[in-house]
């Protein structure tokens, strides 16, 4: 670099930091900064002051811009949050966008869930998320009755009572902000912390399974709302469906035992087809050695299986192919349908 270039750049630095040079001068300054530590330091100092001028203004952008910007960003680079919370974060984002697009009258439409309105259904989601939020020690959206087996219903009733007194926008905001706090906390703690046991509604599960449970319910209820709003169902993306199915498979032996449908020493092969599908061997009871050949193979569509778990299919009617002991298959499907506790 020449002394005259250095001099010229020194003179231009302040104007450059205000973006008040020509394109050619910008190029000259920026090339010079790469090789001149003194100018680079001065340039950053000017930039910081100029940036503070700009950072003092504020006008809320139109409400629709947020979703547009996020969609454009995620189309360029798909997000990869910690695996444990990814499906929940994705379903929360989808439900948030669905609720943003909802007409005011639709909030009072009756859903297929216990005759609740859309607003009451969102309050129900917030109430159950809230039990998890309390466990994670983040602020709860609708503070109410404490945790426990009976907590699910009383928490829902309390949140819905509060929601009936507020605007749909307030219920939506309370639900969404709490969901963001849950995701943030799990992101901060990382995947390793997701293996610890957390009790929710009387069930002590690893945190990662609780989160998948919340993802599942958020999706199923979002679809309930879509049905009311005349929008086509929008299932989770295949890798998340695969995680959800895997979680159900981990919990199935417990559900079989609890509902008295267990078969000690036996196992079943579960083949779920479709995007995100896979094959799992499910122990049907205690001492079910994985080395033994499964007593039955049950093949069905991954989405049908998920809808069954979500209480949206009848275990006796769901389309599936069974080879082997049909009673074991019926017990497994019936146990899978016991997870829905609305």
């Amino acid at each position, binding site marked *: 670099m020449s002394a005259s270039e250095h001099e010229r750049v020194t*003179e*231009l*630095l*302040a*104007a450059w*930091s*205000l*973006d*008040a*040079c*020509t*394109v050619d001068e910008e190029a000259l300054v920026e090339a010079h900064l790469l090789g001149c530590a003194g100018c680079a*330091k001065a340039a*950053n*100092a*000017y*930039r*910081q*002051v*100029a*940036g*503070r*001028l*700009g*950072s*003092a*203004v*504020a*006008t*809320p*952008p*139109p409400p629709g*811009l*947020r979703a*547009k*910007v*996020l969609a*454009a*960003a*995620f189309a*360029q*680079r*798909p*997000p*990869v*949050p*910690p695996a444990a919370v990814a499906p929940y*974060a*994705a379903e929360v*984002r989808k439900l948030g966008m669905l609720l943003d697009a909802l007409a005011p009258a639709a909030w009072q439409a009756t859903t297929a869930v216990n005759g609740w309105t859309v607003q009451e259904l969102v309050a129900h989601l917030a109430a159950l998320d809230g039990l998890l939020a309390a466990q994670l020690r983040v602020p709860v959206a609708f503070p109410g009755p404490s945790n426990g087996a009976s907590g699910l219903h009383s928490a829902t009733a309390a949140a819905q009572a509060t929601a009936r007194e507020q605007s749909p926008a307030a219920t939506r905001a309370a639900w969404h902000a709490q969901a*963001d706090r849950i*995701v*943030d906390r799990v*992101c*901060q703690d990382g995947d390793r912390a997701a293996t610890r046991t957390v009790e929710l509604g009387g069930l002590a599960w690893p945190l990662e399974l609780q989160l998948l449970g919340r993802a599942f319910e958020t999706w199923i209820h979002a679809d309930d709302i879509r049905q009311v709003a005349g929008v086509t169902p929008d299932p989770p993306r295949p890798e998340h469906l695969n995680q959800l199915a895997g979680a159900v498979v981990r919990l199935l032996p417990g559900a079989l035992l609890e509902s008295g449908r267990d078969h000690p020493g036996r196992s079943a092969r579960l083949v779920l087809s479709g995007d995100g599908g896979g094959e799992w061997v499910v122990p049907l009871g205690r001492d079910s050695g994985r080395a033994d050949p499964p007593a039955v193979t049950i093949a069905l569509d991954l989405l049908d299986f998920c809808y069954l778990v979500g209480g949206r299919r009848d275990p006796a009617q769901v389309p599936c192919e069974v080879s082997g002991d049909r009673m074991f298959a019926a017990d497994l499907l019936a146990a899978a349908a016991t997870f829905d506790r609305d």
Partner: protein
Amino acid sequence: LGERQRPGPDSALRERLIAGDETALTRTYDLHAAMVYALVARVTRDWAAAEDVTQEVFVYLWEHPAAFDAGRGSLRTWLATLAHRRAVDWVRREMARRERDERQAECLLPEPDIAGVAIAATFADRVRAAVAALPAAQQATIRLAYFEGLSYREVATKLGIPEGTAKSRMRLGLARLADRLAAEGISR
């Protein structure tokens, strides 16, 4: 000024953006979109451009989170810098397009109304007070360059001063502003 800073919430946010945590982007948007949108609207005087450039800025951050160096200033200042440059680029393109159109149609586009660009309270009050405390000549030069998006040549023409004077007023004004903000405790 310009010293390395201790790791703070911004560097945690940066780590999460790099990791691909989508909540880090939504959080950043919720914290800073109103600033980015207002700044671009002020420079471009065009609400549609403000939306487009705001989108560009956040998509850029999401695609290049490592470009933000948390040790050299706050994320807010960095976003303001990026937004301002993109806004000025938009004005340059628009000017070139208008000159072309004017040669063809000989008519000026109406200036869109940008009333409603508010200034955020407290922090902004202090920045505004620091700007107001500048000698009038420096103040006018910096306002025209930064908020009106004019080049130092255009500022010189508008104020009827030599180009060298416009440039030196920018240097002196920014240096004085830096001292004043540092004295007020606005370090980031």
